[in-house]
């Protein structure tokens, strides 16, 4: 039997995270039965986004323009660079409204077995960026072994430059009780203590 367009569409929906066979079928039937206009709109927007969204030339974050809105904003502190793993981290930090500097998005962590090395993470452009007018690089990477390795690589990379490299503190969540915090986190929180 020849594969129908309906089957092809169901299969296509499965590229989305969390969408299995059943869910894909429900989505396809919903669009075909109840919301043709919504379906057209969705298709169009997906096409547009896939074609138009690239990466910012300065920070590597997803961006429609050559330089993203954050990098292009003169109100932001361009001497501070916060290094994160992925675009979702930028969103999280922006929502916290606690940071006014710029970003550098690695789009991953060092992971030799997956073939992700310094080149894939744009280390060279990070180093180039730090050559000019950057006073502080803030590493906001995950607390995994790979995050640790990435942080070490960056600190070595920037060692010879006159840029200060810092790392965000790790510790107890607000409202968290000590007894429920895991041992590793507690150890890091203890070693990173500050005078009051």
């Amino acid at each position, binding site marked *: 039997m020849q594969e129908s367009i309906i089957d092809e569409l169901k299969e296509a929906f499965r590229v989305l*995270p969390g969408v299995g066979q059943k869910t894909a079928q429900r989505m396809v039937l919903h669009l075909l039965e109840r919301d043709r206009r919504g379906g057209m709109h969705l298709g169009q927007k997906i096409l547009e986004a896939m074609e138009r969204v690239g990466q910012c030339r300065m920070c590597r974050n997803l961006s429609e323009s050559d330089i993203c809105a954050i990098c292009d904003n003169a109100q932001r502190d361009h001497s501070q660079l916060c290094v994160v793993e992925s675009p979702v981290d930028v969103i999280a930090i922006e929502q916290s409204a606690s940071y006014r500097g710029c970003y550098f998005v690695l789009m991953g962590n*060092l992971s*030799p*077995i*997956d073939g992700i090395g310094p080149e894939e993470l744009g280390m060279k452009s990070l180093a180039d960026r730090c050559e000019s007018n950057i006073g502080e690089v803030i590493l906001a990477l995950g607390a995994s072994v790979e995050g640790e390795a990435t942080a*070490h*690589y960056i600190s070595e990379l920037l060692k010879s430059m006159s840029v200060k490299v810092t790392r965000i503190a790790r510790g107890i969540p607000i409202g968290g009780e000590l007894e429920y915090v895991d041992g590793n986190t507690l150890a890091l929180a203890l070693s990173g203590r500050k005078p009051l």
Partner: protein
Amino acid sequence: MSRFNDFHSAYVLHTRKYRDTSLLVELFSKEDGRYSLVARGARGNKSKFNLQLFSPLMVSSFGKGELKTASVIESNGLGYHLSGKNLFIGLYVNELLFRVLGKFDPFENLFDRYDELLGMLQLDSFDTSALRLFEISLLADLGYGISFDIESSTGDAIVPDKFYCYVVEDGFRHLVSGNDNSKAIEGRHLLAISQGMIDLDGDRILRNIVRKSIDQLLGGKALNSRKLFA
């Protein structure tokens, strides 16, 4: 192959996202060597699995095919905390084992040596000669053993003041005009290595030899972690 619902002593070599909430785990176990398993739900906040690299684990799994499913993964002692350059070395060793070990091919001694190496890597004073010895013994386990005290074409003993070159899968060959050959190695360095004495020269020589052998073993596909040391 031991039964898979038994507990295995193991280390995680690597994890990768798998489906929505799971992880695909590459394990190195004492009893069954390297194999992969799926840890269901391992990416959730309330995961019951401990999947830290460089932490000794007890693992049990089920499944008939090559890809197992984890039933229990728990820590079996304190994990090693590697940092700085030693962390890169740890990642290099993990990639090395991942790439060269066949699936379900157990190497119990190698497992113990890996455990020992991690213990040493935890120290700031780590001496790279321990890494070289680990690599050499790994190559020997895989059938690429190297004799450092014998000339390979004649079987003669290596002579301290003669020059030799290394040929992969063969050994050390005598070089008549050694002085002007960049690959030439003086016999006395090889003899020192054969006695387990590795100084700076020995370390450099071993690094080249090991690298050549591993490259050959991997069919010329270089290890990615080498880029970390550039």
